[in-house]
């Protein structure tokens, strides 16, 4: 009885929070709507001066059709209706490919995700074994500590010129930047997690004459797993932040490139849609690691 009441209260609290979130969203959209439509009349009046044939031609060359039906006030912020149009357009064909400069948002995201995945996995492959070493051996820790302290605060994008020069491939340079930015949290968290495994458990392993490899995989790894996965979660967050900036810099493909390209096209609806996509994908990635974290966490 008491439990069900409590359950109901919790559920109703969740319900309340959900309703309030929706309300807040509606409020924000309302403000957006009022701000853009209110400004639009002014903007429209400003741009209604008839264009010359050359100007129309120029606009068409730039990828816009000022005579078309959805002629948006270029200088204005997109209205909600325009946003809806763009969203529908992108979602109805997320994976189309009309050439390197015109592909679906899904493909762009896939390019970014692939780069992040490769860079992140390479970083994990280096950081986790190295973190084990640092965590288990104070000598290794002291030897590597100065390098880590100097390399860690370097902005990942500062590596870009060096990466472009040595790797000579813009896409791989992006991967390298992801690698270098996601290595540190994983390295330090793994080292910390391994170093703080409880003495008792190690003593149990010692009295059972467990081989070093078996100890690493069946005692230290599960004991340090929550800390390691936390490091991976932080790394993934940083990697997803950095990939957008890196792709803006090197161009070619990816969601960062898409945002920059649409900025050059001055297509704000596309940019806003891309921003929302970046946020959603980032959230999904974080949720994924939160689930992994829950799977490896243990109660003492």
């Amino acid at each position, binding site marked *: 009885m008491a439990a069900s009441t409590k359950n109901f209260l919790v559920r109703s609290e969740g319900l309340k929070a959900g309703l309030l979130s929706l309300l807040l969203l509606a409020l924000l959209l309302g403000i957006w709507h009022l701000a853009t439509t209110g400004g639009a009349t002014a903007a429209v009046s400003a741009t209604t001066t008839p264009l010359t044939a050359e100007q129309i031609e120029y606009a068409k060359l730039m990828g816009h059709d000022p005579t078309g039906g959805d002629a948006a006030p270029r200088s204005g912020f997109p209205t909600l209706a325009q946003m809806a149009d763009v969203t529908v357009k992108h979602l109805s064909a997320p994976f189309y490919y009309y050439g390197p400069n015109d592909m679906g948002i899904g493909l762009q995201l896939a390019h970014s995700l692939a780069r992040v995945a490769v860079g992140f996995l390479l970083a994990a492959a280096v950081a986790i074994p190295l973190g084990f070493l640092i965590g288990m051996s104070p000598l290794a820790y002291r030897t590597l500590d100065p390098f880590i302290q100097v390399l860690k605060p370097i902005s990942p994008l500062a590596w870009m010129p060096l990466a472009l020069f040595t790797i000579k491939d813009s896409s791989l340079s992006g991967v390298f930047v992801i690698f270098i930015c996601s290595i540190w949290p994983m390295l330090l968290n793994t080292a910390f997690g391994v170093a703080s495994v409880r003495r*008792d458990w190690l003593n149990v392993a*010692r009295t*059972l004459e467990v081989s070093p490899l*078996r100890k690493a995989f069946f005692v230290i790894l599960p004991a340090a797993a929550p800390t390691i996965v936390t490091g991976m979660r932080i790394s993934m967050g940083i990697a997803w932040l950095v990939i957008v900036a890196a792709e803006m810099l090197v161009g070619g493909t990816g969601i960062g490139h898409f945002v920059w390209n649409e900025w050059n096209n001055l297509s704000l609806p596309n940019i806003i849609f891309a921003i929302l996509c970046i946020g959603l994908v980032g959230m999904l990635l974080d949720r994924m690691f939160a689930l992994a974290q829950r799977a490896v966490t*243990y109660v003492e």
Partner: protein
Amino acid sequence: MTDFLKVEQLAKTYTGAAEAVFEGVNFGVRQGEFVCIIGHSGCGKTTILNVLAGLETASSGYVLVDNREVAGPSLDRGVVFQGHALMPWLTVRGNIAFAVRSKWPDWGRAQVDEHVQKYVQLVGLGQAIDKKPSALSGGMKQRVGIARAFSIQPRLLLLDEPFGALDALTRGTIQDELLRICAETHQTVFMITHDVDEAILLADRILMMSNGPQARVAEIVKNTMPRTRTRATLHHDPQFYRIRNHLVDFLVFCSAELSHGRAPLQPPEVSPGLAEPEPEPEPISAFEVSPVVSMRRVA
């Protein structure tokens, strides 16, 4: 009968410390014997146990198990840790299976599981076999620790104050269980305890340590009560009070007097349980004058 476990001139000085924690520790444990060690905090009981387990090294002296020197941890010596030391990400089954697989790496899955179940039954935890340690009470966790130590069938079992953190009722039940299991398996046991009654119930011989620094095993008290003793009937035996008084007197009056290496190097073995009822506790006053002489007299 030669000693199965032999400790000779064991000493430990921590780096930077002026005096040894313990020094000149000598004692032996026979095959199948249950030995308890009692002493005040800081006399190095846990360090001695860790040296026996091979987890720590002594500054000098030897530990011989079956005439071979202890050089490190071994599956021959099982340890029950003070804080149970179960791995929280494994179930009861997983924790014990980890130990069983360490001892017999080429056993098949079914054989390991059968062995695990046998030892889980032994400590009466059949229903909880698939639970994680976090879902168990303190007493149940310690039972799992005991089952794990027994499951590898060690030749020597080391218990570091295993019931220290348990309430009196639970402690009593597990003591009875331990007594039963040791009787069934003829296990050789070395156990640290703070509880005089627990020592009298469980031990065949009780090693009394003097206080640190330079602590020693100052006296060995033989438990002359029949091995069929149980917790329920223990206090009806007149020997119980003689032994108990002797132990408590030692801890209260003698152990501090015998610190700084004033205890004898070869501890005398005494049987206070068999002593004639004395008109007054004369040994106590004698201890205060000259501990070593009086203890020899008692022996």
